[in-house]
């Protein structure tokens, strides 16, 4: 009996190892195949390269519950149908899990880069660009960059080149529950004074004036700096130790003392802050245009409107926005320089950045597209898109452009600023020091 049990266990062990080995074999043989095809490619050289099978690996963040995920897979399927010789491996994963940066960076530094990717054209891509791992799109042969609106120009890097072609943009702003404002007889905050008055009024009621997390205070920090400094100071470099930044941080404390946030603002996360707003327990929230999807799901799209942050700084102008396009399509240098892949990757790139595809994906997300315009938009969405169109200036969020540790320090110090343990100036000083 006992013997039987052990032989059973051993047998199981071998079966599983065998299975694992089989799994290995399977992929092993598939890599052999690709090697074979590239060998053949050398033999027959230019002759009928189009008929050769090409495998492309595409990495994006459009996966899971991202509304673009399904549409994107559909687009890829359509493309493969039109080009039967091109096989696409869709290696997308949600950016929220936090592993995508690690994966992309390791891939690129280990000679395993994806051929095409939809990735952050922010401080995250600095390394890839400096190392020449991605293609300068304007000089790339066959790449079509026509038809873009101003979002393309925003992708231009400090070195003067464009490495990423945007898909759609986003904007951030002050989302307002109009219904609550009406019920409580509060004026919509189009100026700084009205904004402060709204905070004061709601603080007297059971309604939380602003749903926010002070630990996860990305949008709060950005908008308070924008209000205190206007676009000119907002887009200043971190090293400038701009006074408006410190002033903005200190304003958060001032408003917290007025009762602007919930008592547990320091420990809730963004999702719970959003929940406060969606349950109509809060009157305002700083969010981005992706928030509309959730509002629609909660059935309150019509009750909400989005306003630009009221700017009180001299030289600033209300209407200036935090926004832009932080993600774009990159072509890896390795794929571009590979004769067997070059044509395929360029044609896939052009397909994905065609107006038709861009609109298709933008329709799923409701974001302002980088080419063309969405039709049949709900009024509230249209209002948002108009905000972007009429903005005197648009700039990317601060955390997309400064050294990550510095921004984390600023953001996670907000609870201490609120409690009075730290001053905006001090925090900024330390953040600058960290970036050195």
């Amino acid at each position, binding site marked *: 009996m*006992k013997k039987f049990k*052990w032989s059973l*266990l051993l047998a*199981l*062990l071998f079966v*599983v*190892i065998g*299975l*694992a080995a089989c*799994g*290995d074999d*399977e*992929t*092993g043989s598939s*890599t052999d195949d690709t090697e074979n095809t590239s060998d053949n490619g050398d033999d027959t050289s230019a002759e009928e390269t189009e008929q050769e099978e090409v495998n492309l690996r595409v990495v994006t*963040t459009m*996966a*899971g*519950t*991202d*509304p673009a995920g399904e549409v994107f897979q559909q687009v890829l399927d359509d493309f493969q149908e039109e080009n039967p010789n091109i096989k696409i*491996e869709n*290696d997308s*994963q*949600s*950016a*929220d*899990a936090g*592993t995508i940066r*690690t*994966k992309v960076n*390791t*891939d690129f*530094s*280990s*000679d*395993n880069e994806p051929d095409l990717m939809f990735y952050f054209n922010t401080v995250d891509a600095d390394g890839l660009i400096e190392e020449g791992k991605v293609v300068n799109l304007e000089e790339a042969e066959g790449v079509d960059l026509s038809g873009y609106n101003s979002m393309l120009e925003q992708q231009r890097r400090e070195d003067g080149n464009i490495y990423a072609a945007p898909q759609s943009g986003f904007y951030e702003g002050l989302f307002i529950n109009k219904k609550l404002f009406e019920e409580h007889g509060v004026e919509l905050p189009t100026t700084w004074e009205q904004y402060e008055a709204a905070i004061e009024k709601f603080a007297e009621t059971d309604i939380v004036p602003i749903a926010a997390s002070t630990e996860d205070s990305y949008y709060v920090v950005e908008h308070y700096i924008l209000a205190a400094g206007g676009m000119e100071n907002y887009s200043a470099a971190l090293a400038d130790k701009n006074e408006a930044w410190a002033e903005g941080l200190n304003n958060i404390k001032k408003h917290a003392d007025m009762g602007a946030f919930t008592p547990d603002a320091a420990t809730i996360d963004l*999702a*719970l802050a*959003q*929940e406060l707003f*969606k*349950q109509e327990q809060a009157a305002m929230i700083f969010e*981005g245009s*992706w928030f509309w*999807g*959730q509002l629609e*799901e*909660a059935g309150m799209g019509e009750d909400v409107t989005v306003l630009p942050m009221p700017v009180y700084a001299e030289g600033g102008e209300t209407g200036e926005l935090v926004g832009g396009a932080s993600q774009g399509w990159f072509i890896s240098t390795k794929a571009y320089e590979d004769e067997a892949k070059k044509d395929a990757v360029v044609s896939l790139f052009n397909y994905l950045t065609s107006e038709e595809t861009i609109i298709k994906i933008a329709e799923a*997300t409701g974001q302002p597209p980088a080419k063309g315009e969405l039709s049949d938009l709900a009024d509230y969405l249209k209002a948002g898109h108009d905000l972007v169109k009429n903005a005197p200036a648009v700039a990317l969020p601060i955390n997309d452009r400064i050294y990550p540790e510095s921004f984390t320090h600023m953001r996670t110090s907000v609870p201490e600023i609120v409690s009075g343990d730290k001053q905006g100036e001090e925090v900024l000083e330390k953040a600058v020091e960290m970036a050195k």
Partner: protein
Amino acid sequence: MYSHTEEQLTFWEKFQERYFMNSKAGKIFVYVVLTLWSMTTIFPLAWVLLNSFKESRQIITGTFNIPSDPTMQNYINAFETVNIGKSYLNSFIISGSVVLLVLFLGGLAAFAMARMQFKLRGLLQALLVASLLIPAFATIVPVYRMMIGMDLVNTYLALIIPQTAGNLPFAILVISGYMATIPKELEEAAHMDGCGRFKMFTKVFLPISLPSFSTVGIFVFLWSYNDLFSSLVLVSHEKVAPIVVLLSNVSSQYGTDYGLMTAAIAMTIIPVLIFYLFAQKTFEKGATSGAVKG
């Protein structure tokens, strides 16, 4: 610590003995404590299951209510996002291999660590403890690079090998802790019977230590199976992705789908519970059959 030597019973010990252990009241007290604790442990499971039948919104607003209008939508969504059958199979191939490899390699090593004398023993012991402390975040990038180098990314082995390595120290420590207390007479008896070391391991120590093998097996399975972080990096592709990868699909910048999340968790729990019940049976048997006369 407590010693073996006979001592006079203290007043408190006598008191406890009379009122807790040997009386009805004592039994009731034990059952009350156990029941209370089991209520706290059943609660989260019930919470997950109930919430998996609610809409996302209700999970935050009325998370502790019974679902008023139960819906299967979350499960339907889960089935649509990934190929569930394939993911389960992937999970079992990966975690099953990890468990068997860890038990086999770890069992042998534990036997040597527990029952044989050699110079490096102390050092190896320290190394094992140290490896329990290495955070996965610290090793993932080099491991991923090695897998790229060996052309194993997105194959089962890409996850099986590092998870085996990561769980071996735990297995060796626990199993050798268990083996250390097996009577020396048994070892000597086996030796007299002409058993070599390997035979001694398979014929004597392995059967006796079966309960600890099951315990270790359960936890190794659990950790391997729930390891989202490494799975996302090493085996993200649909062909080989295990079931936990579903969990990563529940949130994007457009919000977190809590309904899908609870459904995904419910679906990941079920196989582990089955595995646990199965393994528990095994170690119960082992415990009785392995009860050696000392």
